[in-house]
Structure formats: C-alpha cells, structure tokens
C-alpha cells in the first residue's frame, strides 16, 4: 500500500497554505495573453471553412 496526497487545491485539505493570487495571476497572464491572441487568430482563420 502506498499513500500519496492530493494538492492543496483540494477542498479536503485540512490546512491549506495561503494562496497568493497576485503573483499567481501575473505569471499565468504572461503566458495566457499571447496564447489567447494566437488562438483567436486561428479561430478567425478557421471561420473561412464555414463561409
């Protein structure tokens, strides 16, 4: 038998450490902004198939 643990995002966590939303949000923003721009461009291009 082995025991592993779910992450501290789990609702069952007894003592979840404090999450710092500002640094977390900023690092995600740096990668999500260009990614969303690229995905939007591709979606717009894809629309040509349905015209």
């Amino acid at each position, binding site marked *: *038998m*082995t*025991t*592993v*643990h*779910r*992450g*501290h*995002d*789990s609702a*069952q*966590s*007894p*003592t*979840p*450490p*404090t*999450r*710092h939303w500002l*640094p*977390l949000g900023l*690092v*995600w923003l*740096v*990668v999500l902004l*260009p*990614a969303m*721009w*690229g*995905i939007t*461009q*591709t*979606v717009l*291009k*894809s*629309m*040509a*198939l*349905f*015209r």
Partner: protein
Amino acid sequence: MSLLDRAHSVAPPDYDRWRVPPSALAIHLAIGQAYAFSVFNLPLSRLLGGAAATTGDWSISRIGWIFSTAIVVLGLSAALFGRWLERVGPRRAMVTAACCFASGFFVGAAGIATHQFWLLLVGYGVLGGVGLGIGYISPVSTLLKWFPDRPGMATGLAIMGFGGGAMIASPLSVALMARFKSATSPGVAETFVVLGVLYLALMLFGAFTVRIPAADWQPHGAAVRVTGAPSVVSVSATDAVRTPAFWLLWIMLCTNVTAGIGVLGQASAMIQETFPGRIGVEAAAGFVGILSLANLSGRFLWSSLSDHIGRRATYLTFFALGTALYASIPSAGRSGSVTLFVLSFVVLLTMYGGGFATIPAYLRDLFGTQEVGAIHGRLLTAWSTAGVLGPALVNYVREYQLAHGVAKSDAYGVTMYVMSGLLIVGLLASLRLRALTATSTTSPSSSHARRAP
C-alpha cells in the same frame, strides 16, 4: 552563474505548485514556433527575385530541409542532453535552450541577409534544433514531480503550449514581415531578429520562474490510497532503453506521429483536391486552422483523461479509433461530405496531439520520475524519425498514384489506408505493452502505480 544551480531553484515548502505550469508553458509556447516555419517558405524562396523567384534563389524543397533538420536535431539533442538536464536541473537547461533557440534565429538572420543557405541551416536547423530539444524536455520531469496525482494533466498543459506556439508565431511572423518588407527585401531577416529577441525574453521568463520541489516534498491535503507498486520506482535512462517497454512506446509514438504529421503537412492540398471546386485556398487554410486547434486541445484533453482511464486505455483508443477513422476517410471523401471529412480529421488530430502529451506520464508510470526527462529525451528520437518518414510517405504515395493515372481527388485514398496500417502496428505495440505491464499495474486510475517490466 550559481543562480542557475539546481539548489537555487528548489521551492520553499509552502510554494504554490500552480505557479510552475506557466514556466513550462512559456518555454513550449516559444519553441512551438517551429511548426509555423512554413510561413517563411515562400519569402525565403524569393530573396533575390523579389516578387518572383529568380536564378540563384533557394527552392522550396531545399528550404524544407531547414525544418526537417530542426526536428531531427530536436530528437537527437533531447536524447543526448536528457541526463545532463536531470543533473543540472530545469533552470540551467531552460537558459541553455533559450540561448540556443534565440541564437538560431540570429545566425539564421545572418544567413538570410547574406544569402548563405548553410548559415541558415546551421543557425535555425542545428543551433535552433538543440534549443528545441533541450527546451522540449526541460519542464516535463519538473511538472511530473509537482503533480504526482495528475501527471497527465500537468504535462499535457505544457505540451499543449507547443501546439499553441505555432498559433502565435504564424500570424506574428506574417505581421512582422509585412512591417519590415521593402522594395529590396521581404523582411525575413529582420523578422528573425525580432523573433529571436522575443523568444529569448519569454524563455528566460520561464527559466527564472521555474521551481523544483524539495526531495521530500509531497502535496498537502487529503490522502489518496493507491494500491500496487511501491511509491518510488526509479529506472535509469540507460536501463530503461534496454527494456522492451521503452521500444514498444517508441513504436507507438513513432506510428502515431508519422500518421498525424504526414496529414498535417498536406492538409491544405488534400482537402482542395478531394473536393475540387467546392473548397478553395481560403477555406483550406481554415481547415488547417481547425486541425491546429484540434491538435492543441487534444494535447490537454486526452492527457488529462488518461489520469482517469489510464495510459493503456488511452493509447488503445488512439490506435483502434484512429485505424477505423483513417480507413473511413476515403469513403467520406467519395460521399462528398465535407463535414464528415473534417470531423474525422478533427478527431484524428486530437489523438495526434494527445499521443505527444500523454507519453511523459506513461514513461513516469513505467520508469518513475528520477530520470524521466532523460528517458523522454531518448524517446523523442521517434518524433525525429516520424518527422522525416511522415511527409515523405504521404508525398511518395501521392506521386506514385498520380503517375499511375489516379485522379487527384482519389490520390489520397491509398495514403489513408497506409496511415491506417501504421496505426495497426501501433495498436499491436500497445497491446504487447499492455500484456507486459498487466501484472505490475493494478487499476486504471492508479496512475501512481508503476513498475518497469
């Protein structure tokens, strides 16, 4: 340079592990540019002639070697530097990848400016290819260590970035070339320099924000009981490549990628020639865009699903469903149903992406996390092989068909049956691997249970 040492990237005990995936995404969003290299094909073939190619200009087929070289070097460098990466940690490896990838653009720009093909090949193909290889495997083992409970989802998130990278690079490169275009230059060299600077910044962001968990770190929270294998099984890269399981996975990755990569490269021509008069150039570009989105989403969806249904079931689905879909595509083409044709390819391309993204978690299930980056690196030689094999196979079969009087609208039929056959090989390898590991893993959901055969 102690800042780059492994010890300096060890996270404090209460570090939020959700801050790590963006570091991995930054690297993969940058190196994913490789799949958008084709936007440079036409401008690079008219560097001397301007509006049209002239004597001395590079041919499209010659330019194609740059991308092929980059993909081959990717696999070789991932295999070569995998153990080094495990030793020095992800930060130093990511900085090295950033320097190589950006230098590839700078040297390539010099090659374009002076019209020296070899310089472009050495720059983007070799130097950039090394950056691709090290960059691709750098974040994978780190994420596997941070997310032992969701390894498929974690690596899928990073490898999804590789698909997204092309979506950023393609419109960005077109916009930059339009900005730098002049009467005497298509603006490719200047675009290469700007891309080099941008990607260097993005990759360094990833390198300096990445953290590795302490050796004794475990995620906080509710305990999950997992039966079966011991919690830590560590197989070295040297030992892993001696196991049949490694080579079965190699065959599975190679066949899955060969089938997908061959179709991706020919998608635009294929849909236009299958539905002549109904699908034009613009609509075909839309089809390529949809396939890219399918590839991207499949990387995350299938790898996340594999955490629940198990890696074996996931790959069996890829090969069984893929075989059936490839075999049915000629009928879809003959029936004249564009919708059916497009839907079949959408599902196939999600599985192509899913195959890439799920393989690190499969390796971790079988060989443990200690040298998973190095083992993953060696497995990526399957990608290099597929990168050459896939397009060559599709081109050769198509040319053969056309030379024997087959109509263009039917020329891809045989190719689809060949792809279907390839996936049967993958299915057999998958079944063999299933038989090999059936006695050592327990339930599909016990993703932590693993033992090298």
